[in-house]
């Protein structure tokens, strides 16, 4: 599990400021981490992400914002909270990762994974439009944005046949309230 985070040529000074920002925003005591790697051992996306869970925390302590914000690990995190459940120091790395993802958006950077943020956006767009998730609308938006028109067509038809995808959306009556929540959310970004 050793990787370039610990061996590479990058020279970074431990950064109090990044760790402090992350602690404040996520509420997680990142400076307590002593690299036992229980988090990484249980992570379901460990084999496909470019950083292990423990490395995320180490890079936060080191203040390596560039490596963190350009990592696909942020997007591949499933928020299953296995890391949180097993951390002897009470750190929820998925909560740290949520703050890092928000930083990617705040700084108008390009996320290191394309499809996952497009999926999130398409999902929330339909919630903003109707107050509830409208699956068929979300799939349409997502496919347009990612140009993945033909993927899973057969499966989609099976779901439609079984009534597991609905043609029409359900709409919340006080949609103005949901829209006002979305407006406030955008202002805070």
């Amino acid at each position, binding site marked *: 599990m050793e990787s370039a985070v610990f061996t590479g040529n990058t020279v970074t000074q431990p950064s109090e400021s990044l760790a402090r920002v992350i602690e404040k925003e996520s509420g997680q005591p990142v400076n307590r981490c002593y690299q036992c790697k229980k988090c990484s051992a249980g992570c379901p996306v460990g084999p496909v992400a470019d950083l292990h869970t423990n490395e995320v925390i180490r890079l936060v302590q080191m203040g390596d914002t560039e490596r963190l914000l350009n990592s696909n690990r942020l997007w591949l995190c499933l*928020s*299953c909270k296995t890391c949180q*459940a097993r951390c002897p120091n009470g750190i929820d790395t998925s909560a740290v990762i949520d703050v890092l993802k928000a930083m990617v958006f705040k700084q108008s950077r390009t996320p290191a994974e394309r499809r*996952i943020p497009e999926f999130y956006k398409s999902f929330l767009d339909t919630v903003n439009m109707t107050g*509830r998730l409208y699956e068929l609308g979300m799939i349409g938006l997502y496919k347009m944005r990612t140009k993945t028109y033909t*993927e*899973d067509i057969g499966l989609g038809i099976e779901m439609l046949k079984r009534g597991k995808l*609905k043609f029409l959306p359900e709409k919340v009556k006080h949609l103005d309230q949901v829209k006002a*929540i979305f407006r406030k*959310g955008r202002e805070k970004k």
Partner: protein
Amino acid sequence: MKVGYYPGCSLHSTAADYGLSTEAVCRHMNIQLAEIPDWNCCGATPAHSTNEFLAKALPLRNLILAEESGLDLVVPCTGCYNVCRQTHGFISRGSAKSHSVNSEVASIVGKRYKGSLKIMHLLEFFSQDEVLAELKSRMVRTLNGLRVVPYYGCLMLRPAGDVAFDDPEQPQKLDRLLEVLGAQVKPWSYKMECCGGSFAIPKADIVTDLTGELVKQAKKAGAEAMVTACPLCQANIDTRQANSGMPVLYFTELIAAVLGLDGQDRWLGKHISDPRPLLKSHEII
């Protein structure tokens, strides 16, 4: 008995089988489900992954609406349950941030969340002694030793401080319930492993790998079916391991079976991997 009910978006669509079987079982057992009026989507993973305010404010509107009824709130969808309980915990701890979010949502909805709700997962609700006793008294058949593995998934009990109603590494509630129904519950080490959650569409390869391992391990444990209480877990295994011959059932579908309810095809017929041949072979339906 009357409880508040937050079905969430899935139970009206991709988990319609879970929704229909839940409603039918509760109707039969005289449990009145009072749906939160005008509920909205909880925001799920897409909200907390992109916008902290949305992640708290969307579920908060539902909690405010639910609190008005004065009833306990029962949530069948594990994703919704997790988000509701985490938001309840966030507000109850009373930080400066939580006061500010509560006030901002109050300015939109017209009321603050007081934090008085008791929020229960549907599995927790059915694990209560009095509900289990009522269930036992109404059983007309048993699962006849059907070999199953209980699959809790990742979101039901984590983070433990806010959401757990059972041990977060070695949960037993679903095991006990299935034993009451007459199943042969097989031990396995994958109860709490993640199915790939919200990646079903954007990263199907990851979901296929994770669910493939789950099905492999369930078979190794000797199971004929997997039983879950989460719409994402069910959908991910059912759609990405459709040819594995491993049906994935909601626990409410098995309750409906032992109660001998009419019209079970309405939900059992919605699965991609049809569980009916297996249930018929054990004379459960």
